[in-house]
């Protein structure tokens, strides 16, 4: 049996989780970490523009540093993360420096790259596979505006790195469940057409890839959880047949039960009979769950078929700027006051010659988190709400103009406007999303190994 935990559901999750997991579960074999949401690569592209040594998730280096005491005490835990982003080599180099400077015992870092296909895609903008999958637009119109384009690799290159003795594997874009599939294949020696077993490991990966989302986080009945301040991070105990037990360390908060597992199973899926990954096509329709008590749920019955012959590609392009501002409004007719205040700020910008391209005014407290669906909230008696103004425009100066028209509402707006002391809001770049495909056979992942300290 192999124990695989997750210590990062997204970039921004708790940096303390990895060390905590190893401390709470010393016999854990692998820890996976996920740093790359759809827009993360764009943020890294900006970073790397300013400094070519960057372009990776710097938090990962601190996480590696936090594990050094455990490695020094003899822990054999291995780490697999897509923290490499646009510069996996740079990330590995920095990790190696930290490991050496803190006297860590010898370790091997495996680097997986080759997912960055920006120049390849820009060279052939008329390729029908490079059309935007959502809008069907051809790339030829927008190719030069692409800032990033990365293919989602599967588990194979990670397995190769592990087979070459890597203790830490740093990748660029990889399908999230593949971070879990790889150690299973490496450990059990499954063949790549053992589709049912790989499907089982993919389900385990899908369950743990979002960290605490399977151990009680964002669960419907969250208020019933015990010790929600200390929700344990998830561990999948994967068996040779691909089935697994989902659990978390003993004496941690949260819960692993039928409900939390089913919620995460249904998270971000489309057709449950055709869940696609670069390693396998999975059907969820024969899965069986058995709650064995004590925060242990057994998952069996995953069925797999060959994967698609294409890799999914995530591309991003710059598309103007956006900005948001918030003010609290208290008193009689709070919603109407908030709404009018928002309109006034926009009118002030209009007077200065900018007709903002996109404007969204929300009164939070009136049901505007899900606008239009909850008429019952819009009662005129409510005494409090938060005005939120969100705008987008290709002209940064138009947004900067608006950023100076928020504070004045505090003297010309309705009585009861408050909460203005956090300063002028700042415009941020917008990144459009360009999802497309590329034939898997056109790409070759690159595996490099760095030996840290003598072996």
């Amino acid at each position, binding site marked *: 049996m192999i124990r695989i935990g997750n210590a990062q559901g997204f970039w921004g999750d708790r940096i303390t989780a990895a060390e905590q997991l190893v401390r709470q579960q010393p016999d854990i074999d692998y820890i996976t970490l996920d740093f790359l949401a*759809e827009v993360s690569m764009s943020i890294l592209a900006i970073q790397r523009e300013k400094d070519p040594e960057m372009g990776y998730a710097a938090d990962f280096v601190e996480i590696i540093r936090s594990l050094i005491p455990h490695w020094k005490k003899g822990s054999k835990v291995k780490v697999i993360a897509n923290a490499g982003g646009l510069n996996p080599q740079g990330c590995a180099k920095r990790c190696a420096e930290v490991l050496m400077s803190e006297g860590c015992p010898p370790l091997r870092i495996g680097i997986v790259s080759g997912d960055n296909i920006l120049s390849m895609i820009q060279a052939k903008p008329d390729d029908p596979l490079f059309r935007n999958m959502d809008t069907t637009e051809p790339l030829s119109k927008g190719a030069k505006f692409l800032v990033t384009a990365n293919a989602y690799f599967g588990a194979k290159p990670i397995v190769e790195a592990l087979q070459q003795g890597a203790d830490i594997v740093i990748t660029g874009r990889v399908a999230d469940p593949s971070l879990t599939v790889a150690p299973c294949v490496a450990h059990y020696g499954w063949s790549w057409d053992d589709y049912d077993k790989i499907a089982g490991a993919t389900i385990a990966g899908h369950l743990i890839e979002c960290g605490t989302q399977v151990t009680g986080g964002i669960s419907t*009945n969250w208020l019933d959880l015990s010790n929600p301040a200390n929700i344990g991070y998830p561990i999948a105990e994967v068996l040779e047949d691909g089935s697994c037990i989902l659990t978390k360390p003993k004496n941690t908060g949260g819960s692993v039960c039928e*409900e939390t597992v089913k*919620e995460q199973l249904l998270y971000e899926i489309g057709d449950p009979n055709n869940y696609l990954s670069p390693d396998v096509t999975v059907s969820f329709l024969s899965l069986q769950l058995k709650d064995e008590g004590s925060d242990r749920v057994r998952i069996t019955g995953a069925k797999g078929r060959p994967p698609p012959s294409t890799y999914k590609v995530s591309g991003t392009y710059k598309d103007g700027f956006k900005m948001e501002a918030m003010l609290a409004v208290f008193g009689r007719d709070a919603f109407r006051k908030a709404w009018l205040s928002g309109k006034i700020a926009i009118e002030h910008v209009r007077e200065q010659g900018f007709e903002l391209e996109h404007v*969204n005014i929300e009164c939070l407290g009136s049901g*505007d988190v899900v606008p239009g669906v909850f008429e019952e909230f819009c009662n005129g008696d409510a005494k409090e709400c938060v005005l939120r103004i969100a705008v987008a425009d290709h002209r940064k100066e138009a947004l900067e103009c608006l950023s100076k028209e928020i504070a004045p509402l505090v003297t010309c707006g309705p009585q009861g406007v408050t909460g203005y002391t956090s300063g002028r809001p700042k415009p941020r770049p917008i990144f459009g999303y360009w999802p497309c495909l590329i034939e898997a056979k056109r790409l070759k992942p690159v595996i490099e190994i760095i030996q840290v300290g003598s072996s």
Partner: protein
Amino acid sequence: MTLETAHLREIAYARSGDKGSNANIGVISYTSEGYAYLKENLTEEHVKEYFLPLGVKDVMRYELPNLGALNFVLIGILGEGGSRSLRIDAQGKALGQAILEMPILISTETLSHCRKN
């Protein structure tokens, strides 16, 4: 048989997620009678109508009888989606809670068989 108005949250739990400009909402029954009720009554048309103010273009429903769950994919509900959206809930994190507030018409008898144990 007395019909009463209840809320979906009394007979099911949910989880929403995003994919570009689409979102999915998994709705999971507490009991097998609850699944039968959802299968019969929580239709694609019903869910589409409920979320029409958000601009949803189409709804697809998938059944997972082995889990007592329905998965709804809501096409276009997130508008521009992700980084481009100006909504506070650009990623549809609130949609699970939103669907659970849906009023349902259900007999008192059936309701008692659909609640969480």
